[in-house]
């Protein structure tokens, strides 16, 4: 075991919960039963479903316009009705360009989910594969990976995110391939997702590595090895299902933080430029708060609040249900 990760892994290993892993299906079923009894968690699940519905709707609006080659409604300016207060036609008023604030928030939901998703596309494979390799093979490979993530963890996130965003932007202007990508994804969104992805995998990698360290000594792994299973097969067929729930837990705890981080990144000017994200809405609204224009800031804050709250509570409940012993380690890295 490398020195760096010693305390956490040993701490977890020191617990009496070191049991033979249950067959994965029943683990999920047991977790679901426990979750169902948690009323608060179920309420949050409903809230999450509502948000997910909103997200699908927003994607629908976005893609319909894209395919038809027209400008989506939420992007059309009506300068004659700028900064209007809430009314029957516009429940949350209109913004600087006379666009409906509610529609902006709905699109903001889309952006929030896209951030969570796109970032995870980078974080999960990177964190999982590196963590698995490090934990399973140990020795030199482990030292190398632990070194890599120690370095990444020691570079200020903002520096990495900013520079990755910078590279992405330059690439968009230079390469035709990137241009075709940004035909579908906002280049600012892509930039911060890549940035947050390459800074965010460390937490997951640590946890997965710790688990693989434990599992590789287990009976079922030793048996598989005796039967001549290949390393790849043991890593990804035998062990992976037993640690897969950690990915979900990691995701549900990381997602709300990504949403909050986007607001700060927008404030710093590294963010989404051409689509309405909650961060940009909040930053724009701050200038008009003084005019008694509370609905813009309030709307975005509330939209964000319920999603983050539901994710936080549901994530906690999910973690408790799936893997109670993880709490300490997770709270620290998440």
């Amino acid at each position, binding site marked *: 075991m490398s020195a760096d990760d010693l305390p956490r892994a040993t701490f977890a290993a020191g617990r009496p919960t070191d049991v033979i892993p249950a067959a994965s299906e029943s683990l999920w079923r047991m977790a679901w039963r426990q979750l169902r009894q948690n009323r608060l968690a179920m309420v949050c699940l409903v809230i999450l479903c509502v948000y997910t519905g909103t997200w699908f709707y927003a994607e629908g609006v976005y893609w319909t316009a894209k395919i038809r080659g027209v400008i989506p409604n939420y992007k059309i300016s009506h300068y004659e009705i700028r900064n209007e207060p809430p009314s029957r036609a516009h429940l949350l008023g209109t913004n600087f360009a006379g666009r409906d604030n509610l529609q902006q928030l709905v699109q903001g939901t889309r952006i929030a989910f896209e951030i969570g998703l796109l970032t995870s596309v980078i974080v999960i494979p990177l964190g999982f594969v590196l963590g698995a390799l490090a934990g399973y093979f140990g020795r030199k490979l482990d030292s190398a990976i632990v070194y890599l993530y120690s370095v990444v963890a*020691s570079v200020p996130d903002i520096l990495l995110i900013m520079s990755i965003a910078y590279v992405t932007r330059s690439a968009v202007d230079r390469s035709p391939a990137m241009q075709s990508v940004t035909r579908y994804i906002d280049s600012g969104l892509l930039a911060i997702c890549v940035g947050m992805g390459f800074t965010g995998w460390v937490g997951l990698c640590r946890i997965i590595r710790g688990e693989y360290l434990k599992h590789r000594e287990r009976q079922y792994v030793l048996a598989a090895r005796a039967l001549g299973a290949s390393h790849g097969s043991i890593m990804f067929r035998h062990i992976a299902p037993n640690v897969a729930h950690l990915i979900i837990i990691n995701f549900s705890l990381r997602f709300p933080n990504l949403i909050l981080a986007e607001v700060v990144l927008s404030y710093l000017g590294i963010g989404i430029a051409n689509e309405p994200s909650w961060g940009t809405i909040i930053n724009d609204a701050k200038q008009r708060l003084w005019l008694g224009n509370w609905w813009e800031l309030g709307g975005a804050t509330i939209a964000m609040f319920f999603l983050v709250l539901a994710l936080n509570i549901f994530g906690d409940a999910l973690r408790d249900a799936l893997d109670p012993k993880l709490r300490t380690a997770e709270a*620290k890295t998440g």
Partner: protein
Amino acid sequence: MTAYIIRRLLSVIPITIGVMFITFFVFRVVGGNPAYRIAGKNATATRIAQISHERGYDKPLFLNFRQFPRHLLDAQFPQVCWKLVHFDFGESVITKQHVSTMLLEGAGPSLCVTTPLFAIELTLGIALALLAAYYRGGWIDRGLVLLSVMGMSVSSLVYIMLAQYWLASQWRLFPVWGFESPRYLILPVLVGVIAGVGAEVRFYRTVVLDEMYQEYVRTARAKGVSSRAILFRHVLRNALIPILTNVIIAIPFLYTGALLLENFFGIPGLGRLTVMALFNFDDDVVFATTFIGSILFVLFNALTDIAYTWADPRIRIK
């Protein structure tokens, strides 16, 4: 044990080199020649070439293979590292000040905000966590957990904006902006505590509860020890280890300051300095702050592990 400590402390070196490598890569390779920024908008090509030469920006980036092996290290990256190791931080392109002076002047104000903020957040966090754990499952516990999660679900930017607008500007309870007397620190610290305490409560409650489900607690309860005594005498003592870890790990961040608070409330600290430097591609300042930051971070991480090993006999080193 001694060998372990030495090994652990020595790990600072390769990690810091790695961090500097990434930072250097970002700023010199991606960011382009700093001579442009120095020369200004009216610069001619010859002027830029001249500045590049004067400052060594025209040397190879990482290693000088052209003059192998005698001048192998006559390249930009080794020279940047060499200077940093000597604590020669250079000069800011943007403000033309010595970076070391800038860091020294910025550290004070940053600490003035972050230290009380951290102390209050910690005490309040632990106190509330103990309260919640003591009444675990009851309405106090649930209420506290819900409140802290709710507090975590609002962007810190919103807290700052609302506090500054209502508490300072409208109701005039606090100064809006400035760094004149301790009175000016109240609002930023308050906002920081409100924005941050939720996460602390949630974390420490988990830590305490983790301890409470241990064998020895069950044994103690079976022996008839009062639940208050269990909480304060046994559980808290054992929970001190993860608490201590969390505290030590947070210390390097005191130095980096709180960017948003500094910006809105006018604290001339390091958080603002660092981000300004990042945006202006002010190489020397960024190199210095990441260098110091990463050393502190890795060092305190190592300290945590050492403290852990020392405090908890269950942990052995293989």
